């Protein structure tokens, strides 16, 4: 009975606790102070520092309260002369074996040791230890380790091993010689450290500090602004520490409710130095005679309004198109959707969700009735099996990666990884299936073949909650493990074992990302994932689900806000007259366009053909991110008029006629919606540089110039309007979001938000099975192009690198494109590690250094796409999935040459 109430007496007062709590936890919960040093609420108790000792009646000695289970009737005393004497001695010993110079310490004022010394009134240390000073490890630009201030509480060790499950540091040696170090005593820089900074966040003293923040402000001088991280879709809550209008460092607090419980990754914690980078755009720019000149907002907006008016007049509203941004807030995306539809009168609006999860939105919407992640991040801890496929989770969604690793470490959860690369999660997996890129439908069908043949599926669930099972059964009948082995290269016994393991779990979750979606049959692969999950009754339950991990901070929100060519906010179709009428009324216009607009790749095509003449790009960089860059460049250059609104002069902005300077996430108010449908607040910490403005202000000003008044006093006013027209957001407001965000659907003010979708009933009624046949990738390898090329991302960079490549720490870790090639292939081509290689496809070529290893399989090449000077997307193919129009980034044929 975990929740059984027990009664204890602490310091003569009766207090209540729950069975299973420790004495310390009961004291804390009742507001009774017990000094601690090694205790951290996120970690298992350690019992190392001996400061939390208490006296307990009928118990010998002075038991540490952090490891002593509380029991009913216990009588505890937390402060006696004896306890104080022992605690004082412990503290004196710690001081004797260190060099605690508070005068110059970054932690002064925020140091638990300092507080404890003060609390215990230690004026003089009675002991003289044989203290040998340790050299500092400041080998890197992010974290400084000063062993001389270490109290060996082991919090950093547990943070690394138990919380992030990286296991980079541990206590070495013994007794008073003990110290914290990495494997084989390497510097942090040379170790396997991934610089998530969980250790820094957990350190009670100044032993671990932020290098970049040194001498830039004392804790009490820093204003902490809690906000949502601007990088990936996890939506971590972090604190911007501000002094003199500069973000000095980023900290985290496990008490702030959110998906990350105080954990961050290297990008969130150390990748925010782009904010006050000198390259930031500070004023509007207008291009004249091929050169940019500075302009006022009035002039720039007049220019845009004038050109938009004339193009619309000459060629109609569909000659204009809009790229919205998964990087911007919901408020801004909503406003751009409104601008395109109500002000201009076109549905030509899309954003880069097209390039990552369009197939998810299309596939899951037909299978389940809703295209979003079904369950929650925190819910992964309830899964008995987690199947991860096409997601290098520890690098792309590091905090979710750690959540998965923690689940596995706890012992209750088994991990299946299906990935063609030997990613970090493979080390934690029970079973790893290494499929050839582009064969996902085949192995998914193969698993279902086994599950159906061995009758391991959930018959009751299939009968009651789904339809189309017979068609599915027929379709997968041909996908015997032998046939699947032939197609995918996965040994048949491994496939069978994985199928049995997945099917055996009471609750199994599937997490996937672009490895599944970015294929010409991406939508089919998503539907296959949905098939598998439904077959085993895993949708609509805790710990189950189909969980597409969204790549960008607000890609879910940009989709929710209707920045897609076929839907208004909340996926209300533009082709339904009633919906159009509702929005026309809400937006105060006579009518809205009913024809489905152009997607991103179609827009670029139409621009090349002269059908789209003007393009407005808000916070996107298609000149690096889109497939087949030559073609993109041609398209953009054929435009009559290109407007780019961004925080830096990106590769795309350089082609623009007018550039508008935008405020970044730290400089504005708003909301982001994370991958688990959680709408969270974004808060302003610093002023934007120069004349830069939040994107929504620029859009509103432009609309007003074009005769459509958009008068919003602040972002909150826009959010109110969003909630009025978006049923899934209807119950939200900023005050409610302040308490930790809300997961949609949240239809009323009383609704607590939705942790997992499709409970008891699918959104579309019954879950729909699809009979799917595998088709090979669009461009098979041949003699001329004998390797499979697959693209992706790395931990230390983000998308087109606009922000991350301007961060000191991130570039110390990964500053240039490295082409991954298998050791065997490299040996055959006489390529050694870090040799320069040239990659050639039918579309183009690029050069970069080779990284030789076992990460990729023989015959496969992996290239990260962040680097414009070595642009992977010069190579990629713009072959589209016919259903979702997502390009096949993940497979094309390539030739590798060594550069002499």
């Amino acid at each position, binding site marked *: 009975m975990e929740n059984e109430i027990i009664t204890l007496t602490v310091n003569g007062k009766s207090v209540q606790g729950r069975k299973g709590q420790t004495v310390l936890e009961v004291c804390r919960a009742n507001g009774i102070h017990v000094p601690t040093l090694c205790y951290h609420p996120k970690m298992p108790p350690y019992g190392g520092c001996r400061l939390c000792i208490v006296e307990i009646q009928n118990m010998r000695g002075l038991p540490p309260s952090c490891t002593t289970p509380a029991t009913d009737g216990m009588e505890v005393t937390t402060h006696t002369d004896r306890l104080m004497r022992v605690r004082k001695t412990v503290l004196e010993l710690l001081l004797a074996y260190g060099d605690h110079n508070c005068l110059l310490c970054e932690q002064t004022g925020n140091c638990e040791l300092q507080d404890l010394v003060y609390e215990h009134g230690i004026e003089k240390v009675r002991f003289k230890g044989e203290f040998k000073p340790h050299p500092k490890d400041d080998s890197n630009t992010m974290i400084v380790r000063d062993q001389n201030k270490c109290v060996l509480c082991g919090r950093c060790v547990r943070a690394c091993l138990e919380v992030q499950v990286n*296991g980079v540091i*541990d206590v070495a040696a013994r007794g008073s010689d003990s110290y914290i170090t*990495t494997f084989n005593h390497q510097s942090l820089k040379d170790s396997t450290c991934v610089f998530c900074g969980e250790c820094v966040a957990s350190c009670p003293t100044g032993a671990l500090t932020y290098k970049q923040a040194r001498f830039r402000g004392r804790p009490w001088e820093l204003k902490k602004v809690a906000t949502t991280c601007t990088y990936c879709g996890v939506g971590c809550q972090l604190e911007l520490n501000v002094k003199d209008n500069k973000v000095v460092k980023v900290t985290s607090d496990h008490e702030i409710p959110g998906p990350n419980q105080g954990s961050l990754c290297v990008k969130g914690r150390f990748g925010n130095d782009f904010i006050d980078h000198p390259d930031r755009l500070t004023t509007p720019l207008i291009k004249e005679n091929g050169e940019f000149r500075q302009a006022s907002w009035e002039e720039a907006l007049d220019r845009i309004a004038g050109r938009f008016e004339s193009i619309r007049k000459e060629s109609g509203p569909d000659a204009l198109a809009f790229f919205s941004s998964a990087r911007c807030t919901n408020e801004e995306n909503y406003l751009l959707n409104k601008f395109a539809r109500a002000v201009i009168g076109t549905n030509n609006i899309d954003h880069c969700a097209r390039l990552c999860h369009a197939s998810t939105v299309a596939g899951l919407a037909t299978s389940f009735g809703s295209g979003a992640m079904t369950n929650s991040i925190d819910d992964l801890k309830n899964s008995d099996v987690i199947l991860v496929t096409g997601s290098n989770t520890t690098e792309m969604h590091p905090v979710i990666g750690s959540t998965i690793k923690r689940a596995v470490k706890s012992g209750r959860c088994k991990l299946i990884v299906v990935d063609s690369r030997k990613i970090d999660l493979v080390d934690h997996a029970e079973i790893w299936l290494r499929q050839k890129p582009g064969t996902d439908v085949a192995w998914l069908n193969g698993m279902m073949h086994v599950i159906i043949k061995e009758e391991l599926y959930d018959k009751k669930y299939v009968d009651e909650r789904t339809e189309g099972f017979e068609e599915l059964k027929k379709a997968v009948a041909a996908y015997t493990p032998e046939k699947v082995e032939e197609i995918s290269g996965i040994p048949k016994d491994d496939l069978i074992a994985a199928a049995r393991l997945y099917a055996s779990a009471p609750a199994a979750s599937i997490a996937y990302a672009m490895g599944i979606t970015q294929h010409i049959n991406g939508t089919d692969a998503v539907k296959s994932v949905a098939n598998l999950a439904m077959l085993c009754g895993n949708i609509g339950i805790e710990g189950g689900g189909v969980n597409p991990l969204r790549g960008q901070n607000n890609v879910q929100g940009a989709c929710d806000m209707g920045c897609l060519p076929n839907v208004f906010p909340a996926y209300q179709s533009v082709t339904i007259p009633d919906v159009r009428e509702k929005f026309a009324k809400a937006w105060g216009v006579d009518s809205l366009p009913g024809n489905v607009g152009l997607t991103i790749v179609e827009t670029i095509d139409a621009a090349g053909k002269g059908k789209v003449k003007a393009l407005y790009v808000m916070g996107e960089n298609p000149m690096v991110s889109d497939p087949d860059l030559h073609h993109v460049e041609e398209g953009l250059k054929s435009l009559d008029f290109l407007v780019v609104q961004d925080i830096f002069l990106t590769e795309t902005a350089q082609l623009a006629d007018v550039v508008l300077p935008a405020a970044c996430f730290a400089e504005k108010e708003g909301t982001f919606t994370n991958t688990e449908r959680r709408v969270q607040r974004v808060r302003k910490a610093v002023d934007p540089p120069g004349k830069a403005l939040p994107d929504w202000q620029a859009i509103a000003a432009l609309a007003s110039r074009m005769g459509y008044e958009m008068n919003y006093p602040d972002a909150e006013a826009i959010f109110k309007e969003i909630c009025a027209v978006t049923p899934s957001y209807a119950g939200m407001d900023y005050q409610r979001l302040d308490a930790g965000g809300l997961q949609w659907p949240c239809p009323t003010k009383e609704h607590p938000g939705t942790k997992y979708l499709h409970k008891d009933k699918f959104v579309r009624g019954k879950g729909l099975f699809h009979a799917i046949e595998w088709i090979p990738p669009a461009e098979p390898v041949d003699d001329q192009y004998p390797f499979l090329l697959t693209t992706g991302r790395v931990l230390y960079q983000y998308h087109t690198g606009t922000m991350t490549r301007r961060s000191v720490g991130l570039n110390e870790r990964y500053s240039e494109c490295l082409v991954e090639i298998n050791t065997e292939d490299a040996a055959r081509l006489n390529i050694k590690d870090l040799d320069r290689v040239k990659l050639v496809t039918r579309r183009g070529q690029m050069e970069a250094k080779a990284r030789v290893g076992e990460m990729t399989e023989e015959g496969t090449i992996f290239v990260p796409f962040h680097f414009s000077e070595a642009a992977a997307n010069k190579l990629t193919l713009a072959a589209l999935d016919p259903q979702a129009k997502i390009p096949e980034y993940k497979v094309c044929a390539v030739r590798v040459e060594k550069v002499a």
Partner: protein
Amino acid sequence: MKEQLDQIFSRHHGTRDALIPVLQDIQAEYGYLPPEAMEAAARFCRVAPVEVYGVSTFYAQFKFSPVGRNLVMVCQGTACHVMGGARVLEEVQSRLGIRPGQTTADGRFTLETVACIGACALAPAMVVNKDTFGRVKPEKIMEMLNGSGS
């Protein structure tokens, strides 16, 4: 190295609690714990490499650099101390030209001190490889080293 390690691993279960016996076998094979072997042991026992490092640096028995062909351990325990263990150590140091923890340049001898080998009745004691010598007289030391060492 892979074959030797596989051989060692075949004698144990790949779990956490097998770590110390595995490390002892590795040390028996190589005379010390090579970093690659520690990493392999970590994978085998499903722990982080740094945990292997933490455990192995905790115990005095594990060594992190190659040792000489012959290991000389001079006891400095209480009984040996009383019976002149310090003089024995001094003599070994001067004869071999190394201090405790070091290895001779020709790789023949590594010198260590130990706190007690449990042969107090024979104090002062010294161990060369598997041979234990009691009531050691400093002038006989070279004889013992040459006799037992290869």
